[in-house]
């Protein structure tokens, strides 16, 4: 019995799935190697690290602080409105505190940093790529990974948890502001209720998430910047891709870390 020759025009779902899976695994492998090289590349410079700590950490403080303030305030209003349905309006301080430090502080802080920093890193490194500045580094015996990627990765990993900590505090203060001015809490009662239900692990897990999110933001910016296409269009695409990848990466990592930390 003879077999019919395969029709090259008929879609083969098994083959297509295999190809897509291999491409995905190759991509993940390439990014993982890039991250490992970026974290440990030689040529560490304290001056470059300090510069990036300032740009990524200090200059992100206003946007992260404002985001946390409004989120904490809105959360207090929401919890109060929802809690009143079953006479549980007095849990507002505890839920605002736990919600901010475990979830909203790290996630919203991370997303704000992604919008501000991933785009900036990708645009800067991408411009350097298309104007041959990265090639110039190579000809000057300087590893572009050590010069560009390492300081940004470590600065983000170190500074985003600090931003998250500050954001948590400001977010709780946002809830306190609403609680004491609108919901009838005394200042002392609100703060006492906030601390009473907060555990050390709530805070530490949020800070660890912040470190992971910082790494994701810098990695996305550096990866897409270093692999930017030619011309202004290439840099534009790199910037967009970096923000999208960092944002989705943060939400996915948040789900995984929450599962690891709290189940």
């Amino acid at each position, binding site marked *: 019995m003879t077999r019919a020759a395969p029709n090259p025009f008929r879609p083969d779902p098994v083959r297509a799935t295999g190809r897509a899976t291999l491409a995905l695994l190759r991509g993940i492998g390439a990014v993982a190697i890039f991250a490992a090289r970026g974290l440990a590349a030689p040529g560490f410079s304290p001056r470059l690290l300090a510069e990036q700590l300032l740009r990524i950490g200090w200059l992100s403080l206003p946007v992260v602080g404002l985001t946390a303030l409004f989120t904490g305030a809105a959360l207090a209003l929401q919890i109060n409105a929802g809690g009143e349905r079953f006479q549980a309006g007095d849990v507002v301080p505890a839920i605002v505190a736990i919600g901010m430090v475990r979830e909203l502080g790290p996630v919203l802080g991370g997303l704000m940093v992604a919008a501000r920093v991933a785009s900036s890193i990708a645009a800067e490194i991408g411009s350097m790529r298309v*104007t*041959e*500045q990265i090639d110039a580094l*190579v000809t*000057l015996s300087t590893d572009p990974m050590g010069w560009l990627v390492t300081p940004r990765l470590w600065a983000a990993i170190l500074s985003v948890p600090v931003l998250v900590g500050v954001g948590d505090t400001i977010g709780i203060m946002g809830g306190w502001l609403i609680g004491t001015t609108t919901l009838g809490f005394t200042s002392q009662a609100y703060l006492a209720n906030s601390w009473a239900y907060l555990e050390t692990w709530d805070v530490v897990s949020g800070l660890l998430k912040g470190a992971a999110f910082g790494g994701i933001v810098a990695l996305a910016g550096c990866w897409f910047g270093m692999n930017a296409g030619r011309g202004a269009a290439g840099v534009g695409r790199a910037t967009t891709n970096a923000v999208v990848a960092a944002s989705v990466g943060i939400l996915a990592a948040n789900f995984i870390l929450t599962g690891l930390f709290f189940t």
Partner: protein
Amino acid sequence: MSAPVIETRGLSKSFGAHKVLDGVHLGVARGESLVVIGGSGTGKSVLLRTILGLESADAGEVLLDGEAASPAVRARFMRDFGMLFQNAALFDSLPVWRNVAFRLLRVMPARQARARAVERLARVGLGPEVADRMPADLSGGMRKRVGLARAIAADPSVIFFDEPTTGLDPQRAAAINLLIRGIVTEAGATAITITHDMTSVRTIADRVALLDQGRVRWQGSVAQMDEAFDPMLRAFVRGEPLDWGPLAGQGRQG
């Protein structure tokens, strides 16, 4: 006879279906100045980038000081190397003097490196007031000269110049040509220069190579170039206009 400082054997490189280098054989002896000429898009810059490992070759090999160019050999080669990029490739985030002194800052204090940078800037006709300016504040010609100052800052023994006089006025271009010639003659540096400027070729070159369709079509001394019979070389040297077919020359009709 010692091995060439730089040698390519059958170097080939394609971008998609477009073959840019198609088996390039070239060698540059120590202290020699090779000038590579050829029309736009004939692979001159790609040749330099492939020698440096900035592009990976599809076939053929690069030898540096007689050794196959492995990453370790290239790293050693780069330690005593300078390059002027076509568009200067200055680091936007650093002031001019830190660009020029980039390599020096690793081996000497900042004050000394800055002094050396200012001296190198003077060699390319730029005053000390330029040292603290940012690259974005400079004209194209000034950026080019800063790039040249950076390339020669550490007195490298091998230097690549990618179109060193493009964007410069004729007097400054002539000064830069003499500077490059001086670096080769006095300091004994080995140089590869890419240029379309025949004045540069005559000033800088010990030897000239014409690249065409990804291959070395002709090579020889400047004197041989002037007497060569190769029609493409003669047309290039004389600057004869290309024949672009039936539409060519229509703009000249009244």
